[in-house]
């Protein structure tokens, strides 16, 4: 079979059909989640409160250490999951695609280390409990005393 570029119109039609089909599949597979998220850190972390601005700085890979100079290790769930999108939008106040773009740009130009991805909230909680200097997020109902729940101060506080 010899395929030449005169099949262009056919190819375009297939392309559009595939796009429409995939659009339908993708819409059908989305499920809404309504969990409330809490930000957690390793129990020894000195910072007991964080402003939204600090939290954005940490997840945006710009703030690299806690006040006592302990390096921050960031945990995240799979960036393609709805949970991650909800956390970004509701808690961080940025969209997941913006955060992903920042991670990619910084990780592949030698400016920062990308967050560690975990596959479940249970794993996130255990990893944060075991890793000094770490930060993560879990739904409120998964919170146990093995990790510390950080108080998030909303708004932009410039008290420093």
């Amino acid at each position, binding site marked *: 079979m010899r395929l030449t570029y005169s099949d262009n119109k056919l190819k375009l039609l297939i392309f559009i059909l595939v796009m429409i089909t995939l*659009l339908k599949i*993708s819409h059908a597979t989305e499920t809404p989640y309504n969990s409330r998220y809490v930000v957690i850190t390793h129990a020894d972390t000195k910072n007991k409160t964080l402003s939204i*601005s600090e939290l954005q700085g940490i997840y945006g890979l710009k703030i*690299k250490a806690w006040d006592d100079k302990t390096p921050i290790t960031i945990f995240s769930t799979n960036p393609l999951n709805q949970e991650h999108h909800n956390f970004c939008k509701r808690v961080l106040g940025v969209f997941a695609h913006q955060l992903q773009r920042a991670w990619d740009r910084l990780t592949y130009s030698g400016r920062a280390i990308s967050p560690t991805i975990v596959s479940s909230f249970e794993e996130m909680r255990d990893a944060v409990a075991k890793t000094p200097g770490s930060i993560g997020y879990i739904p409120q109902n998964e919170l146990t005393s093995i990790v510390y729940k950080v108080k998030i101060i909303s708004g932009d506080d410039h008290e420093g």
Partner: protein
Amino acid sequence: MKVSLVTYLALLLTHTGLIHASSSTMLPSASINTFMSQGYTQTSDNNLYGKSQDSYGSFSLREFGLNASANITPSFFTSAQILARNTGHDEDNDISLDYALVDYSHSPSEFRTYGIRLGRIKNPLGFYNETRDVAFTRPSVILPQSIYFDRTRDLALSADGIHVYNNAKLFSHNSELTIGILKPRIEDKSTTKTLLGQSVQGSLKNNTGYVWKAELNTTPYTLSLSGANLELTYNGPEILADKEANVRFLINILSFQYDSEHISITSEYADRRFKFTNMESLTPFKKQNGESFYLQVTTLSSLKFKYFVRYDVLYQNKDDRNGNKLSRLTNGNRPNHSQFAKDWTLGMRWDINRFWVLSIEHHWINGTAWLPFQNNPLPSETKKTWRLFAGNISFRY
């Protein structure tokens, strides 16, 4: 060494060994990433990345990279990346050191960080230059070619030098300012040929140059101005011995992005100025001022699927937008359409999972201004209007 599939496999095996080594030590502040991609191009006319006019298109576009980073102390950071890229050119890239740097930073408060980077550093030009060879960081298979064209890519990629930077946050505005002094890379002979013509006998040498970027992010908008100023000296038999021949190059890029939950709008404009001194025997013009622009709308209708439409336009010379002057000066060897390119693109991206991404797109192009000479050695044999279908599958770990 040619970048063959065998090399890729060998590197893949090496990297998996490295990954195991790092994960067993559980260093929280060190990480290793790898990425690779396989592209496909098919064109109605003209060649892009291999013999793409062939019936079955071309699978020449392949990329591989491996990077390692470590926070040595909270202030000291180090990172390096190697890169191999096959584009179906005669002078295919060997494995090269893409960047290797140390970064020392200080944060007087949570709202400010300043620092210095030393070594081989990616040039922070526009939104995408720093990660242009990492397939899944691109919004499309092929970046908007009016700005991120391949012809002189080694000048744009990264350079050896020093960057100083200051990141500040004021209320909800983030600003980033970077200024660098550098020695550009001219490893590829095609850079000299692209700038001075295919029959050039000498070569360009790099002098000290400058790069800068100022970015302001005020959700939902990002605005940035970046640029570079380079001077290249030419040595070759075409130049009289007592004269110094050089090319000065100045580029400024204005970048804009708007983000909402379901749509993202990206646009960039670039102004490129060349000034040639004592090079009358090599270039038809003493000065050349080109411009580039694109507007791209991406829909984020779902977590895994993104669709985009883009219009991208490039003029090599604002004084010769239709290419008539150059065509006349070169007796048609450089046809009119080699001086402009207008490209409509429609495409989609599917994030299969967090390791695999599949992208496809279709281009309708008028003009060949960014078409690589390496794939099309005779400009007079190129076609003015052409179509391109491109696909890419990429993997990262």
